[in-house]
């Protein structure tokens, strides 16, 4: 069985090459449906779309540099009630694949009958930026990729600028990886099988020549190093700016308790969120007045700090840094940086990397008898 193959790019048209690959999956009945980004008829956005007919793949935009929703959340929608009985292929970026791995461990998604196709992602822009970019460019995805590859990251969301995992990391969870980084996009890109299913697919598509991963690996290592440098720089600055109650309150001052950040977060999954529950928010006026009396005044809606700290506490171990919380904020609160900063610290504490492996136990469901001493910290 071939482990890898070169996906030839005809006429230098990269999006079409990937589209043809996807069409092959449906045509050869390797999958019964595909969950891929498809351009909406309006022409100014792409959305994940469950496609069953080959001709509907004409408008597929697997390279569109935009992530309106983290795909892990959609996979959870599809498989939370019961494992899929149909074979579904899903295209996922690294942060989506990592979030999905976490959701599987949290029992919010099931990988049965799913073919996971990881794809290299150089970064995404906001939905609004993408809409504008589409109006200005005939082939937005290619133009975007070219700019980012040439070192112009001005269009990238901040979360993507410091993303140290531009390539899918958990190959065991995925079946195939589409490798773009370090490849000549006018010639051919790399398909790498990560499971026996993936090998079957590469075999069935009769792609011919085996690929050479060394070129991609070298480019990926360089990109990762640069991203880590940028990440550490930004988070160092964040820590200085953010430390202390006053700075935290300044950050959260615009919070109107809409809880959109929680809804956009791929990791927050509770059907009934504690922070919306009667325990937390349903009180008589008398109660609120008594709290106001304690301090002379009470901000309403109350408990912005409580909300964000509790949310951090619930998902910091699994935060993949996709930054969609920040995109979802109606008042532009820069949530990504503190969440990444805190996430990294908490994850390091348990030597845990979200999305690394399905076998790594979730830190808060496990324990070691000898750790942290008696005091519980440091």
């Amino acid at each position, binding site marked *: 069985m071939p482990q890898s193959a070169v996906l030839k790019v005809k006429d230098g048209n990269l999006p079409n090459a990937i589209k043809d690959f996807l069409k092959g999956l449906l045509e050869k009945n390797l999958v019964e449906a595909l969950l891929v980004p498809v351009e909406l008829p309006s022409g100014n956005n792409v959305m994940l779309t469950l496609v069953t007919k080959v001709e509907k793949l004409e408008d597929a935009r697997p390279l569109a540099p935009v992530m309106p929703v983290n795909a892990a959340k959609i996979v959870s929608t599809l498989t939370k009630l019961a494992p899929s009985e149909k074979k579904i292929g899903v295209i996922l970026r690294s942060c989506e694949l990592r979030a999905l791995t976490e959701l599987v461990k949290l029992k919010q998604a099931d990988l049965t009958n799913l073919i996971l196709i990881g794809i290299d992602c150089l970064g995404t822009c906001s939905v609004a930026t993408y809409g504008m970019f589409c109006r200005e460019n005939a082939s937005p995805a290619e133009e975007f990729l070219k700019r980012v590859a040439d070192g112009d990251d001005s269009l990238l969301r901040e979360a993507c600028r410091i993303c140290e995992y531009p390539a899918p990391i958990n190959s065991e969870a995925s079946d195939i990886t589409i490798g773009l980084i370090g490849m000549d996009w006018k010639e051919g890109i790399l398909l790498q099988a990560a499971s026996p299913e993936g090998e079957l697919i590469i075999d069935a598509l009769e792609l011919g020549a085996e690929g050479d991963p060394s070129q991609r690996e070298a480019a990926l290592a360089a990109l990762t190093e640069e991203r880590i440098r940028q990440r550490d720089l930004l988070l160092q600055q964040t820590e200085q700016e953010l430390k202390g109650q006053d700075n935290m309150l300044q950050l959260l001052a615009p919070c109107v308790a809409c809880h959109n950040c929680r809804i956009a977060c791929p990791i927050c999954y509770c059907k009934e969120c504690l922070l919306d529950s009667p325990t937390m928010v349903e009180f008589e006026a008398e109660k609120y007045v008594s709290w106001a009396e304690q301090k002379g005044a009470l901000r309403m809606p109350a408990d912005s700090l409580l909300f964000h700290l509790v949310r951090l*506490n619930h998902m910091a171990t699994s935060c993949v840094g996709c930054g969609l919380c920040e995109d979802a904020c109606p008042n532009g609160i820069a949530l990504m940086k503190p969440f990444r900063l805190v996430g990294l610290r908490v994850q390091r504490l348990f030597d845990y990397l979200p999305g690394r492996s399905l076998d790594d136990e979730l830190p808060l469901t496990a324990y070691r008898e000898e750790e942290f001493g008696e005091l519980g*910290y440091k």
Partner: protein
Amino acid sequence: MADLDGEFEPVLVGFFCNWCTATAADLAGTTRLQYPPNIRPIRTMCSSSVDPVYILKALLRGADGVFIGGCVPGDCHYVSGNFKERRRIAAFKTILDTLGLEHERIWLRWISAAEGQKFAATMREFTAKMKELGPSPFKKGWSI
């Protein structure tokens, strides 16, 4: 809060596991051991039932310190509750520490049901330490 001499008296909340620390508190009482009255005890069925949200809410609503008392490692009535709580507290303290919020106001200690003396001594130590830290900055913040 200040006592008659105008000295700062911290408001302290204690979550005591039913099987150990709460019983140790009882033992301290029946053996007439003295310790400061600042702590407001809340009995829980296990230290692991103390979710950080309770700790946080206590602090944000005006407590100066929160104490969680659990069973000595190996003695948990539910086998591993105290180990799991220790992980949660470690994660929670890391979050607070990273954001420059005072994680020192949260104490997790193991006190067995037989350790009335240790309970009283720990309460004295905790109260003294929280007095030293002074009033929690959350106390005054009405805009939190």
